[in-house]
């Protein structure tokens, strides 16, 4: 008889990182506070949906196949979607909230750094159980216990104080826009970045990292808008940032404030629709999540993601491509706009309109693997970066198999996450936004309906 | 441990299955059985029924308890039907003329009485002995 091995016998010995905020938070906790907080959230902030998900799960493990963490860690069951629920929610329920700080250290790690809330698993569970929702519930508990990881908590603090994610001050914001306007005028003489133009067709919105680190993207966007002859505007006041990290930390109150400020800005400018840059989670915030917090089933404005916008510009001839992009490209489907909004086919069409040779990566479309950075995981910062690289080995393998020179990632989070992956696994790929390529290949002339 | 148990259970189950399928003749031919020739494709062996022993034990003297005669809905008192097979009235399938099919007639006749008197077999295999 071979020696029995059970999961109890073989604990998963793996270094799990933590950070000062988590540790300091844990040190402040008392057993009573843990218990009352957990029970308060599980009893008062959930409902029949939560109950159905917990009760209906047949422990069949089929969701495992969906999760990049499970697949990247040699099928370690503790990374399977239901496995993560077992280590968090099930145990909280079983112990009626009476859990230790060690348990919480593990729980916060799982919910914040071992799940991208990408919902791929909901497509693999025969019941359609929403594991991402359960993980967000764990994050909500961690938020209420004040043990949210340091870096992502900082972004929420920034949101709370400035209504943007990166502590960008109001004058800094306006300066940046004017600076980009000035630079872009070298390309187009009369180019403007119209601020606060009431009644414009389009409000263009970006995430705070753009003015902070990647101002060139605003330049590109302005050029494209100008060339396409769009009646557009950008707000000068807080509410310009469409990102929302609070939605990922379970700080629903701040998340609601952010979304409200954003829609109110669009309302103040009386625009017809909102167009946003290439970002996935920001899209999720203003298209799917934020609106629910301020009481709208669907967003009060038409929200158009860059992919869809480029598609419109290219198919309507407002932008023409001078010379198609020559390098071989592959396309990463950002979860939040493919599985989250079905833009994957448009993304392919846009890619084919601007690039010569497009190589598909598999799995793709709704079934893409997340970049591993999304859902606030990358925002937990440097302490967790090493793990993040290990946890998305499948993405690296998937990228490598395409053999493409350029990787298009039409999402900020994906972009940064994939750059890390490409670097860590020596994949020797250039990571680009669709906008980068369009900017590079388009004819720099102003659209004239008569032409 | 549990793995061993499951494995042993599995073996036991296979074993039973093999025995089950090979074991068609348990040697009960000598038993007196009801004639099943009226059934097109009898699924079970005819019910074991020793007519005289049964009636002696059960103290049944009137034949028409079982071998009754009906005229429409009403039983015809004093007449009995020992000479005709049950299937003459009770067709294989219930029909407007006779609502009680042959098998139901048998089952009800036997089981209802056994339930009422709290004596005798009432389960399928207690009559349809293999």
């Amino acid at each position, binding site marked *: 008889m071979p020696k029995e091995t*059970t*999961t109890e016998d073989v604990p998963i010995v793996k270094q799990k990182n933590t950070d000062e905020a988590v540790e300091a938070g844990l040190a402040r906790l008392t057993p009573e506070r843990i218990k009352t907080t957990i029970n308060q959230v599980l009893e008062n902030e959930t*409902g*029949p*949906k939560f*109950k*159905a998900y917990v*009760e*209906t799960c*047949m*422990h*069949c*493990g*089929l969701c495992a196949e969906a999760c990049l963490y*499970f697949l990247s860690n040699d*099928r370690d*069951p*503790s990374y*399977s979607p239901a*496995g993560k629920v077992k280590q968090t929610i099930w145990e909280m329920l079983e112990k009626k909230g009476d859990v230790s700080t060690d348990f919480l250290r593990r729980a916060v790690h799982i919910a914040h750094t071992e799940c991208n809330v990408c919902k791929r698993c*909901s*497509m*693999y569970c*025969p*019941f*359609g*159980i*929403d594991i991402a929702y359960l993980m967000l519930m764990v994050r909500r508990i961690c938020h209420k216990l004040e043990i949210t990881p340091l870096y992502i908590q900082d972004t929420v603090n920034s949101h709370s104080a400035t209504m943007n994610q990166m502590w960008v001050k109001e004058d800094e914001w306006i300066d940046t826009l004017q600076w980009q306007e000035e630079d872009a005028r070298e390309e187009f003489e009369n180019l403007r970045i119209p601020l606060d133009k009431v009644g414009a067709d389009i409000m263009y919105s970006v995430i705070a990292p753009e003015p902070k680190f990647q101002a060139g993207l605003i330049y590109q966007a302005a050029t494209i808008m100008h060339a396409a002859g769009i009646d557009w505007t950008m707000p000068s006041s807080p509410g310009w940032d469409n990102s929302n990290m609070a939605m990922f930390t379970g700080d629903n109150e701040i998340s609601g404030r952010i979304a409200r400020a954003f829609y109110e800005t669009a309302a103040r400018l009386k625009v017809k629709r909102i167009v946003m840059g290439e970002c996935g989670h920001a899209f999720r915030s203003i298209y*799917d999540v934020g609106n629910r917090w301020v009481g709208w*089933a*669907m967003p009060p404005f038409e929200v158009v993601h860059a992919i869809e916008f480029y598609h419109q510009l290219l198919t309507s001839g407002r932008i023409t491509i001078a010379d198609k992009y020559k390098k071989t490209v592959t396309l990463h489907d950002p979860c939040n706009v*493919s599985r*989250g*909004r*079905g833009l994957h086919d448009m993304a392919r069409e846009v890619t084919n309109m601007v690039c010569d040779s497009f190589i598909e990566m598999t*799995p793709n479309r*709704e*079934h893409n693997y997340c970049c591993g950075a999304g859902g606030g995981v990358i925002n937990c910062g440097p302490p967790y970066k090493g793990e993040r690289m290990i946890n998305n080995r499948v993405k690296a393998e998937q990228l490598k198999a395409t053999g493409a020179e350029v990787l298009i990632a039409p999402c900020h989070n994906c972009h940064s996450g994939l750059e890390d992956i490409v670097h860590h696994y020596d994949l020797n790929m250039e990571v680009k936004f669709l906008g980068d390529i369009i900017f590079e290949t388009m004819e720099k002339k102003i659209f004239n309906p008569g032409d | 441990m*549990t793995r061993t148990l*499951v494995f042993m259970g599995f073996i036991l*189950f296979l074993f*039973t*299955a093999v025995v*089950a399928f090979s*074991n068609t003749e348990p040697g009960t031919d000598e038993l007196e059985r009801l004639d099943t020739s009226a059934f097109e494709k009898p*699924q079970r062996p005819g019910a074991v029924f020793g007519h005289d022993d049964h009636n002696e034990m059960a103290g049944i003297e009137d034949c028409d308890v079982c071998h009754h005669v009906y005229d429409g809905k009403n039983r015809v008192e004093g007449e009995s039907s020992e000479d005709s097979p049950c299937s003459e009235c009770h067709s294989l399938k*219930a029909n407007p003329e006779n609502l009680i*099919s042959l*098998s*139901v007639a048998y*089952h*009800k006749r036997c*089981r209802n009485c056994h*339930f009422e008197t*709290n004596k005798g077999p009432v*389960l*399928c*295999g*207690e009559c349809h002995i*293999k």
Partner: protein
Amino acid sequence: MNAFIAFIMGPMVWIAFLIFILGLIFKLVVIIKDVNARESYVYSYLSVKYSLRSIFAWLIPFFPQSTRQSPVFYAISYIFHLLLFIVPVFLMSHIVLVNEAFQLSWFALDDTLADILTVIVVLALVFFAVRRQTVPEVKYLTSFNDYVLLIIVALPFITGFLAYHQFFFYRQMVIAHVISGELVLILIPFSKFSHMVMAPLTRAYMGSEFGNVRHAKDW
């Protein structure tokens, strides 16, 4: 003894079926009330079209990606769930009993075929148990209760099989069979077996979110 058998094969069957059906209805009513009271936003997203789209997509064998990735398990599970209903509903011995009680009858399986199908059901359950032991990600999720569920479903099939073959303790076996069959029916609304009604609900909601909001497929 016959009186006891008369009870478990008579009134107790009524009781079991009533608990089974009323229990499921009760469960649905509680959920609907709960949704109305606490999560009425669900109705803003729920759509008949997308609910049915998702449910049907998931009913087609080997259509969803997930089923193609674990074909053996899904095939067995599919067969198991079908037979779970087909065997008892179309079993000659069951129909005979219904026929005697209500003059109702319908197509019956050949006894030998039903017997083979019964063995298949039990083998499927054995497969589930072995899978719980051997596949790490399933083992990790498995607790004692999951085996109890498997045993509870297996009981009516095993006892029915043993009774049909009249191997031993025939009378006791049928009694055990009837009681275990009734137990399964009674437990369905109050255990994880209630996934029978929960599955369409959770699928409908996820299907609606994917169809209505996400404009994407969920299979």
